[in-house]
C-alpha cells in the first residue's frame, strides 16, 4: 500500500488556506443527519466533541473515567506555546514551525507542523474567550515564559496547572453541548474494538465499566483521541488509566502504527523510591528556567548537597551546552542525566538522581517570587519526598512521559482506515522524534478545535450514508470477539496478578527500549517479551467476573495489548539504525556522545501494518521531504 499523506500543493504558508477552500462542505441542514463517535475527552477529544456539536453534528462521546474532566491532559503543568510574539522578542509562526521541526529532529511532516504553528494563535484566543485564567502582567495583558528548545518566550501558562485550565475550558464547552443534547456523553465506558464495514470505520464496541455490559455503537465516522502509550513502561508520568487499547485495537483493524519507537523520556521527574512505586510524578520543565542542574564532580561523593562546595559541583548542562544551558530539549537533558548517573555521580539513596537547585534563583529573586511562580510544584515535591525544596535541592531523574509515535494519519488526520480520525498524542504527526515542551497542549487543541472540524466534513460529504446500524453483522461479530477475549482472560485462573506481569514487562522495555538502545538488547528483548506474554496467557489471575466493576479485568486487557505493542516498539527501534530525538541508538552517536541521524537512509515515517497474530508486521514508508527547513545536526551548544 502506498501511503498518501495528502499534503496540499503550494507554498507552505498557503497550504492550509488552500486546502480549507478545496475541502468539501456539509451544509448546515445536513450536518444533523450525521453522527460522529468521539473516543476520549481530553484536549483533543473534548475540543473535537464540543466543536463538532457546535457545527451541528450529532456526537456520541466516551471516556473511561467517571467524568470527562479527569482526562489526563489535566495533568500538564507548564504551559502551551503560541506564536503570538506578545513579548516582542522575535517570535513568529515561522519560528515556532522551525523550532518544532528542529526540536523533532527532522522526523515530522513539515506541512502538519506549519499548520500547527498557524492555528496556535487561535487557540489562545479561544481559551481566553472561554474564561481560562492565564497568568497576566500587572498591566492586564497575558504573561509568557520560556521553555526548552526555544530562545523566545512563547509559553502561556496558568500557574503550574495549565493543562487543567485548558481541559476545564474544553470540558465546559463540551458540557454546554451535552446540555443542548447535541453530545451524548458516556463516562466509565471503555472502547474495546473498532467496527469496520465495507472498509470504513463505522462504529465501536464498548464495555460499561460499572456493570460490564458490552454494547455496539454505529456512526458515520469515528474520532479517536485516546492519548499515548507511555504506560507500556509500567512506570511513567501517565495516569494509571491511560492506555493504548483503543489505538491498538484500531491498529489490528487496519490502522497503521507509525514510529512506535519514538518515546519521550522527561528529564525532571521525582525519582523512584521503592518496589511498590505505582507511577512517577513529573516536575514541570518550566522549573529549568530558574533551577540549575548539577551532580558532584567526584564519583561516590555522598555528602549532603549543602556540604559540597561550589567548585566541586558539576553544572553539566551549563558546561556542555553554554547557549541553551539548563534549557536544552528534553531528550538531551535526559540522556545527560543518565550519563552522569552511569558514571557513578548520581545522588540520593539509589544513585539514580541529579540535583535541580534553586538556591541561586532564590537569592537573586527572593523566595516569594519563586513561590509565586512554582509554589504548587514545590508543595507537590515536598508532599511526595518529605523534603523542602526551598532549602534542599530537588532530586530528579528522567521518566517516560510522552509518546511521539502513534497511529499514522494523513494531513486530514485520517488514518489508513477511512472514516477513522486520530487526534492528539494518539496520532504521530507533529512532533517527529522528540516533542518540545508546551507543544502537547497546543497539538491536542489544534487538532480538536481547528483541524478535524474542517477535515471531517470533507470525508462525510464524500461518504455514502448507507444506513449502518449497530445490529449489522459486522457489529455482532466484533461484539462476540470482544466478549470471547474477556472470557479467555478470566478463564486463565493462574497465579500471578496483572500488576506483577505489567511491572515485569515495564522493566524489560525500560531496560532495552528506554533511554539508550542497541542491536543486541533490542533483539534479545523481543524474545523476552514473547516469553513473558506466553506466561501471561497461562498464569494470569483475575479476581471477580465480567459483570461488575473490575479494575483488574480492565487492566488485564490493556496489559495484553502492551505485550503486542512493546514488541512492535522494539522492532521499530531495531530497524531504525540511527539516533534521532528520543530514539538513541548507541551505535549511532557523535564523538561527543550526541545523537547522530542518518538522513540518507532514514528520512521517513515508519508506518507498520498489522498482518495477523504472531506474523511479522509489514513496514510501509512515508518519505519525508524538507523543503523549508534545512536538515542540520541539531546543536544546542
Amino acid at each position: 500500500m502506498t501511503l498518501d499523506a495528502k499534503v496540499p500543493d503550494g507554498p507552505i504558508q498557503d497550504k492550509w488556506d488552500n486546502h480549507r477552500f478545496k475541502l468539501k462542505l456539509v451544509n448546515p441542514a445536513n450536518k444533523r443527519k450525521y453522527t460522529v463517535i468521539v473516543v476520549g475527552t481530553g484536549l483533543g477529544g473534548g475540543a473535537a466533541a464540543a466543536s463538532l456539536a457546535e457545527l451541528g453534528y450529532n456526537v456520541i462521546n466516551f471516556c473511561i473515567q467517571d467524568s470527562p474532566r479527569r482526562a489526563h491532559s489535566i495533568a500538564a503543568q507548564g504551559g502551551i506555546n503560541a506564536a503570538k510574539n506578545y513579548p516582542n522578542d522575535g517570535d513568529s509562526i515561522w519560528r515556532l514551525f522551525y523550532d518544532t521541526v528542529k526540536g523533532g529532529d527532522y522526523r515530522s511532516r513539515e506541512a502538519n507542523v506549519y499548520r500547527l504553528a498557524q492555528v496556535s494563535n487561535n487557540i489562545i484566543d479561544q481559551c481566553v474567550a472561554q474564561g481560562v485564567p492565564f497568568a497576566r502582567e500587572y498591566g492586564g495583558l497575558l504573561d509568557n515564559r520560556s521553555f526548552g528548545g526555544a530562545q523566545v518566550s512563547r509559553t502561556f501558562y496558568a500557574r503550574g496547572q495549565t493543562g487543567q485550565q485548558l481541559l476545564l475550558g474544553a470540558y465546559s464547552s463540551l458540557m454546554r453541548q451535552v446540555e443542548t443534547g447535541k453530545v451524548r456523553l458516556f463516562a466509565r465506558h471503555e472502547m474495546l474494538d473498532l467496527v469496520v464495514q465495507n472498509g470504513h470505520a463505522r462504529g465501536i464496541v464498548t464495555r460499561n465499566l460499572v456493570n460490564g455490559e458490552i454494547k455496539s455503537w454505529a456512526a458515520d465516522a469515528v474520532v479517536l483521541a485516546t492519548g499515548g502509550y507511555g504506560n507500556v513502561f509500567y512506570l511513567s508520568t501517565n495516569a494509571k488509566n491511560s492506555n493504548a487499547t483503543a489505538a491498538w485495537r484500531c491498529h489490528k483493524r487496519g490502522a497503521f502504527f507509525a514510529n512506535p519507537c519514538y518515546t519521550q523520556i522527561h528529564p525532571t521527574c521525582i525519582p523512584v523510591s521503592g518496589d511498590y512505586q505505582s507511577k512517577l510524578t513529573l516536575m514541570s520543565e518550566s522549573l529549568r528556567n530558574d533551577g540549575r542542574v548539577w551532580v558532584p564532580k567526584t564519583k561516590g561523593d555522598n555528602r549532603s548537597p549543602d556540604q559540597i562546595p561550589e567548585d566541586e559541583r558539576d553544572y553539566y548542562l551549563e558546561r556542555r551546552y553554554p547557549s541553551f544551558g539548563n534549557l536544552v530539549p528534553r531528550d538531551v537533558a535526559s540522556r545527560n542525566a543518565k550519563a552522569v548517573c552511569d558514571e557513578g555521580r548520581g545522588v540520593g539513596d539509589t544513585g539514580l538522581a541529579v540535583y535541580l537547585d534553586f538556591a541561586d534563583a532564590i537569592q537573586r529573586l527572593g523566595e516569594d517570587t519563586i513561590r509565586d511562580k512554582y509554589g504548587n510544584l514545590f508543595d507537590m515535591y515536598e508532599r511526595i519526598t518529605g523534603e523542602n525544596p526551598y532549602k534542599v535541592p530537588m532530586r530528579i531523574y528522567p521518566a517516560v512521559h510522552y509518546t511521539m509515535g502513534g497511529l499514522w494519519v494523513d494531513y486530514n488526520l485520517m488514518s489508513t482506515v477511512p472514516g477513522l480520525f486520530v487526534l492528539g498524542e494518539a496520532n504521530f504527526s507533529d512532533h517527529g522524534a522528540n516533542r518540545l515542551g508546551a507543544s502537547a497542549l497546543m497539538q491536542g487543541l489544534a487538532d480538536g478545535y481547528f483541524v478535524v472540524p474542517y477535515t471531517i466534513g470533507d470525508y462525510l460529504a464524500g461518504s455514502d450514508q448507507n444506513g449502518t446500524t449497530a445490529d449489522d453483522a459486522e457489529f455482532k461479530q466484533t461484539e462476540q470477539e470482544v466478549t470471547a477475549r474477556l472470557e479467555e482472560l478470566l478463564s486463565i485462573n493462574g497465579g500471578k496478578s496483572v500488576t506483577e506481569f505489567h511491572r515485569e514487562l515495564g522493566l524489560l522495555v525500560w531496560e532495552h527500549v528506554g533511554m539508550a538502545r542497541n542491536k543486541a538488547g533490542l533483539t534479545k528483548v523481543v524474545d523476552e517479551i514473547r516469553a513473558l506474554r506466553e506466561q501471561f496467557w497461562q498464569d494470569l489471575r483475575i479476581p471477580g467476573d465480567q459483570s461488575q466493576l473490575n479494575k483488574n479485568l480492565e487492566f488485564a486487557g490493556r496489559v495484553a495489548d502492551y505485550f503486542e505493542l512493546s514488541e512492535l516498539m522494539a522492532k521499530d527501534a531495531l530497524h531504525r539504525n540511527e539516533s534521532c530525538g528520543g530514539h538513541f541508538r548507541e551505535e549511532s552517536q557523535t564523538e561527543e556522545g550526541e545523537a547522530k541521524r542518518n538522513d540518507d537512509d532514514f528520512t521517513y515515517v515508519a508506518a507498520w501494518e498489522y498482518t495477523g497474530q504472531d506474523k511479522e508486521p509489514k513496514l510501509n514508508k512515508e518519505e519525508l521531504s524538507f523543503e523549508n527547513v534545512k536538515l542540520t545536526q541539531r546543536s544546542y551548544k
Partner: protein
Amino acid sequence: MENMTLLLKVWRQKNAESKGQLVPYTLEGVSQHMSFLEMLDVLNEKLIKDDDDPVEFDNDCREGICGMCSLVINGIAHGPQKATAVCQLHMRHFKDGDTVTIEPWLAKAFPILKDLVVDRSAFDRIIAAGGYVSMNAGGAPDANSSPIAKAVADDAMDAASCIGCGACVAACPNASASLFTSAKISQLAVLPQGQPERKRRVLGMVKQMDSEGFGDCSNYAECEAVCPKEISIAHIARMKREYMKAALTEA
C-alpha cells in the same frame, strides 16, 4: 524507619443495591515512603493472592490534579494532611500499629457503585447547567484585546483550581455542593468573559445543584478545611450574593 503494620478497616460493598460494611485487614510491611494509594495497591495484591476480592477505589493521575481519588480516612475526606488529595498523602503521616478506617464519600447525591467508588455525575450536570461561556470555536477576539487586572485573574484562578473531587460534599454535615458550585460561578463572575451570562448561570447552576439532592450551606466551613486546593468559602458568599441579585432582577 522500620516498616509499619497497620490495621485497616475498609468499607466493602458489592454494588449499589447491596448493603456495605467495614471489613478489617491487617497489613504488614508498609513503607513510610509509599503513597496511601500504593499502600492500598499492596493490600489488593495480597487479597488477590489470598483468593479474595480486591478493594475497588477510584484513582487516575496520582498527582493530585485529576480529582478522581475520593477516600474518607479516619473520618476526614482526603485524610489528615491539609491541602492534599489522598493520592498525594504518604504513609509517613502514619505510625506502626495505627488503625486506619477507609470509607467512600457518603452523600445522597453520590451513590456508591462498589466499595469505595461513588457516582459523581451530579457535578457534571451542575456544570452543564451553566458553568461555561457560550462561545463557539472560531469567533474569539485577540486574546490581549481585553486586559484583565492581575488581581482579578488571580482571583479567578484561585476559584478555577477546583479539581471537582467532591471532598467538600463528603465533609459537609448537610452534604452541600456549595463550594464546588460557587467556585465555577465565582471564576466566571469576576472575569469579563463571564458577564453576559452572569445571572442566567448562577440561577441555572444553583437550581441544578438543589435538584440533585445536595443539602444547603449552613456555613460549617468543613468543606474549606478538607479542600485539597484550599478553595475559600468566600466563593460561597459570592455565589449567594450573585444568586440574590440575579433572582431579584431576572425573575
